[in-house]
């Protein structure tokens, strides 16, 4: 439900939200949990049975608590939209998600900063996924054209016994500006996680990603994956880590950096640490041009080099 004092702000954010692939009418539905933040105000919110939402204004942001009762299965995705419409300033968003045991929920989060010239957004999401619960958190970002947005996004998650967690981060449709993503997951007994970031860099965009899997419980498993398409003069530094601390835990980390042009500067460091001889960790990493055979396959059907690159990268960054 939209707070009537913020109709205009909502309309402006809604426009950007649609551009990022969201469906605005979902924010008006009573059967969908939604939270819309603009600057340091919650301008719209709705909840359903079994889900409790609390929010507090901060000086330059908001703090949100979202709790899901034990045994609650939420059919429709929970929608979060965080916007900042002014060119300058800072926004701090603190999120606390608590999913009880045996719950199931999908979160779709969009962050839209369409006019940032000198703007910084810091977000910290602390998430607790209860026993045998299933959670998907998908975060899509849209930043301004001139690269003046700095985003620091930190996700700390604990997945309890038998739970499963997916955390996906996308920034592929606009300039990045400066981006620092940190994802860290503590996996308990038989818990599983898939954390993944996909970023398309242009001009002098700058990116640091740090993904960490702590396989602390017996039989836990996790995948941490990063895909970056770096063009122009962009820079990227990717670190994926896995800690195999328990018996029969399994981890895989993977980083693929596709580069275009001679002026990009990208690197990746895979780190694997094992503290239990029955743990098993693997990694894969690649840095290079778009696959030549893929390119030539599409070009042999009449696409230009540009069109072929675009099609291949579009697929990879999905």
């Amino acid at each position, binding site marked *: 439900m939209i707070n009537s004092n913020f109709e205009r702000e909502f309309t402006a954010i809604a426009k950007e939200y649609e551009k990022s692939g969201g469906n605005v009418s979902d924010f008006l539905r009573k059967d969908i949990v939604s939270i819309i933040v603009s600057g340091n105000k919650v301008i719209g919110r709705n909840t359903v049975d079994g889900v409790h939402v609390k929010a507090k204004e901060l000086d330059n942001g908001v703090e949100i608590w979202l709790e899901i009762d034990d045994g609650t299965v939420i059919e429709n995705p929970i929608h979060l939209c965080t916007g900042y419409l002014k060119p300058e300033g800072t926004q701090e968003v603190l999120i606390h998600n608590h999913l009880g045991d045996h719950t199931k929920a999908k979160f779709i989060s969009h962050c839209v900063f369409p006019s940032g010239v000198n703007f910084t957004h810091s977000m910290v999401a602390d998430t607790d996924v209860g026993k045998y619960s299933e959670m998907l958190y998908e975060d899509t970002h849209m930043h301004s054209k001139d690269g003046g947005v700095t985003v620091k996004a930190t996700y700390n998650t604990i997945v309890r016994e038998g739970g499963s967690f997916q955390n996906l981060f996308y920034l592929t449709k606009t300039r990045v500006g400066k981006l620092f993503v940190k994802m860290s997951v503590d996996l308990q007994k038989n818990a599983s996680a898939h954390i993944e970031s996909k970023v398309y860099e242009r001009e002098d965009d700058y990116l640091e990603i740090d993904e960490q899997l702590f396989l602390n419980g017996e039989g836990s498993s996790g995948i941490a994956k990063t895909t970056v398409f770096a063009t122009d003069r962009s820079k990227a530094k990717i670190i994926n880590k896995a800690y195999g601390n328990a018996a029969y835990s399994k981890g895989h980390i993977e980083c693929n950096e596709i580069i275009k042009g001679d002026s990009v500067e990208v690197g990746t460091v895979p780190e694997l640490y094992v503290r239990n001889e029955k743990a098993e960790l693997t990694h894969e990493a690649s840095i290079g041009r778009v696959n030549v055979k*893929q390119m030539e396959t599409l070009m042999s059907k009449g696409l230009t080099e540009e069109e072929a690159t675009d*099609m291949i990268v579009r*697929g990879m960054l999905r």
Partner: protein
Amino acid sequence: MLEVREIKLVRDERKILNTLTATFESGRVYAILGNNGVGKSTLSYVLMGLESHRDYEGKVIFDGEEIDLLSVSERARKGITLGWQEPVRFEGLTVKEYLTLGGKLRLSKEELNETLSIVGLNNEYLDRLVDESLSGGERKRVELASIILVNPKVTILDEPDSGIDIMSMEMIERVLERLRDKGSIVIIITHREEIARMADEAYLLCGGRILASGEPEEIVNFYRKLCDNCQHINEPITEGGRVDD
């Protein structure tokens, strides 16, 4: 008409293609038959103009125009296309996106469905991904469908049956039929007699050059006699080598 004149390609001081000359006419299917390692795939890359194979000597002439300086994209825009022996996979692209080249080809539902049925697939495949989730045979069928849909003037098919079970020979015949009906020059590259027999005309390739040409049946017999127990498989043909005799 596509003419290939005295093509030579050297790798590691070996002549992979060695004064290869041949001509191909529209609306006809040609088989290029030869054992493993005789230079069949290399010829297909040269005709397509792949970046890695543009350093050949000799001429490729299409409809009277020398196209040797043209890139893959430019040759494709002239109507030349290549079906690879092992089609590559793509992450995140659906069969539908692949067949329409990301929406560049405006294709009706009927066209898509009809083409899929030629290659023995149905429209349920349109939403599948062109990645590891397709089997080798399915991927190859999608590739053949994709080739039909670009409506080529010259179609080079490198081992069209590889990865496809022997029961599917009829499917390959349907594909060739369609391309021939549309007036394409079809060049099938193969080491299999059954496939060569589907052509209107055949060339026998050995040591990087055409050794014989004629009716497919005739060439198949020649291939059996000459190539089955041949000692120089995978060996370069040097000037004055045995095959020149």
